[in-house]
């Protein structure tokens, strides 16, 4: 079984709206970050990869298994861990019951093995002490961690995480970054996020998606390079820059046209991402 995910000529349409058309992608072991504005098609792509949504055209192969084939799709689901963007958890369940329930649905039928697995994934997301708490009593961040724990059940070879960092406090984010980088060592992790610093910190590869197409596909430092010569620090704001804000030191950080008395600054992934999106917008205009 080849440890890869292949997307070939995939198209998806919601009524009159074409989300993407003829999309191609190959994912290999490691953490891949998926960036893009709202409505770019990230979640739709993730649903197609998670087999919860069938594309209108094209093929998706997960670890060599064709998702358009019923039997192969079923097999593929045994290798996929999926955290949807909006997670509906059962408020009346206890934390361990919910994880146990999903573990059964993941075909872990041996009771001892299931108990070990429940403890393992709850330990991974630091929720073991809350295992008897009702889901309704958990904070937003805890619920998010619970969702991540559910995605980790069964040690899936392909992890699809749609905005998993939402609601996590800084400490939990750091912990989660560590977990994801560990997981990415020998499996495919696709991570959708709006947090560019997370992408910079843990992804080996970044995909920037807008309007159903990939604007960028490469390592994080290359996306930052997109903004080389376009990031400035100045005592004055810029009326012509693509983006600008006053930083903690009182100076303005500007992306785009330089303001008065500007000095060049080291670009970040976020700067590169902004430049990429704006370049695309200008092309369209």
């Amino acid at each position, binding site marked *: 079984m080849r440890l890869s995910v292949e997307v070939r000529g995939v198209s998806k349409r919601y009524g009159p709206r074409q989300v993407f058309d003829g999309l191609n992608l190959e994912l290999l072991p490691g953490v891949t970050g998926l960036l893009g504005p709202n409505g770019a098609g990230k979640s739709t792509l993730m649903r197609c990869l998670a087999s*919860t949504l069938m594309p209108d055209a094209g093929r998706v192969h997960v670890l060599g298994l064709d998702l358009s084939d019923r039997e192969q799709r079923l097999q593929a689901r*045994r290798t996929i861990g999926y955290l949807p963007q909006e997670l*509906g958890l059962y408020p009346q369940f206890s934390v361990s*019951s919910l994880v146990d329930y999903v573990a059964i*649905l993941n*075909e872990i*039928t041996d009771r001892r093995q299931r108990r070990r697995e429940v403890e393992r994934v709850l330990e991974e997301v630091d929720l073991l002490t809350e295992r008897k708490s009702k889901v309704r009593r958990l904070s937003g961040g805890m619920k998010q961690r619970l969702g991540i724990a559910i995605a980790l059940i069964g040690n899936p070879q392909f992890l699809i995480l749609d905005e998993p960092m939402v609601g996590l406090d800084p400490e939990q984010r750091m912990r989660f970054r560590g977990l994801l980088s560990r997981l990415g060592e020998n499996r495919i992790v696709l991570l959708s996020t709006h947090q560019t610093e997370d992408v910079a910190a843990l992804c080996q590869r970044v995909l920037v998606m807008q309007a159903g197409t990939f604007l960028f596909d490469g390592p994080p430092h290359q996306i930052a390079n997109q903004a080389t010569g376009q990031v400035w620090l100045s005592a004055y704001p810029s009326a012509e820059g693509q983006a600008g804000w006053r930083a903690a030191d009182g100076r303005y950080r500007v992306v785009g046209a330089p303001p008065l008395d500007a000095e060049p600054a080291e670009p970040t992934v976020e700067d590169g991402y902004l430049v990429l999106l704006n370049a695309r917008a200008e092309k369209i205009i």
Partner: protein
Amino acid sequence: MSRVAQQLALFELKLMLRNPILWASAGVMLAWRTVATWSFEPAWHLETVQTATAALLVGAAAVVVTSMVTMRDSRPQTAELFSALPTGQPVRTVAVVVAGPIAAGLVVALVSVLHFVSLLGGTPAGRFDAYEVLTGVMVAALMAALGVALTRWAPTLIIAPVLIVALVWAIFQFGRNWLMPVVPIASAPGDISRPSGWHLGYVTALVILVAALALMRHGIQPARTGIAGVAAVAVGLTGWSTVSQPEANERETVKASTTYVCQRLGTVEYCAYPLFTRWISIWQGAVDPVVQGVPPKLRAHLPRVIQLPGEESLTGTNLKSTIMVTLQWGRNGGEAADRRSLASRMAAAAIGLPGGYLAVHNCDLRGQARSIIAIWLAMRAGEPPARFQQSPFDEGPNTVVYQASDLGIIDFGDEELHYARRLLAMPMAERRIWANWDRLASPKTSIAEALPLLGLRSEVPSERPREQPCR
């Protein structure tokens, strides 16, 4: 059933058995049956049917619970997560449609056992119909399965309340035999009109049919269709057998035999159905104090006490020598009225009052000496006979109003009640009464004539008969 389905069913079962809605309904069911049977000696043939009917309460709760559980994976955000898992919705349906009926059935079984054990504190009689008990279990299971099937076909939370409203409507619309042959409500032996074995088979087949229909929501497969087809045929056959033998249950469970078991205790013969012989001593407890008040030479001629409904045809001859008791007897205070009624009828028979079943017209005992003796005899067992009262009796489309006292279709007044009380307080009153029995028992002897014979003085005003005097 796959290993995943088994584990999932076990998981759902554990969860449902912790569901407060189910246990609240169990509490209400137990309270209902406890209150309803508190004042009556347990009659198994009735109580097993009534408990099966009461299982509808747990069934209603089970509909709500299984519907909610079935709806669980239909929530948009949850559906997204679940659709990426290897276990699909059909397996989840199998798990719920297995776990729901088992959970509801277990709760009903537990409540039924608790209730029946509590009834052992009384003097239970009649045939304990295990089929009826199991029918109660299956009725709850049927409702649980319905909750799953309806919610799979119409995935909305409103479906459970709609089903419950339809159920309540059906009960009021079709009365005792609503939705026959599913669950008739029995309140008297004559109402039980189903052979319990066939009926159990019918409800069980319905559970299987409904479960198969729930699964058919996920596609018509040969196995599901086959099970549904066999279950449908079974429903038809068992349903037909149930309604085509309406008397079977009464014959089997009430009488158990066409002959009575008769015992002569002292001078009175008591006849009960074989499964009700434990009640003979209870009847004797009410009759004996009356018998002890009758002159010994007359005691051999007292009527026998016999249980209704019976196979014997009641004619004028045996009516006069028979006092009938029913398949019900009170307890925890509820027995007072039954004791009073039985003792009063024995007293009325002993003094020669017109027999209740023969008297078709009202008559009035006011002013007659024998009224004092009849009331005195009855009061030896406890309370004085109930006064003349109207009781509505539902007879088909018309409600007929009957007037009767505990002595029969016979009225009496305060005067005789007063003197009966005085007699009861008088030591050795029996000797005076027995010595003048023939005169006192005569319809021609007035109270005024009797008072000196009884050693009493006139203390209250005389009353005139309001109806035709009794002869």
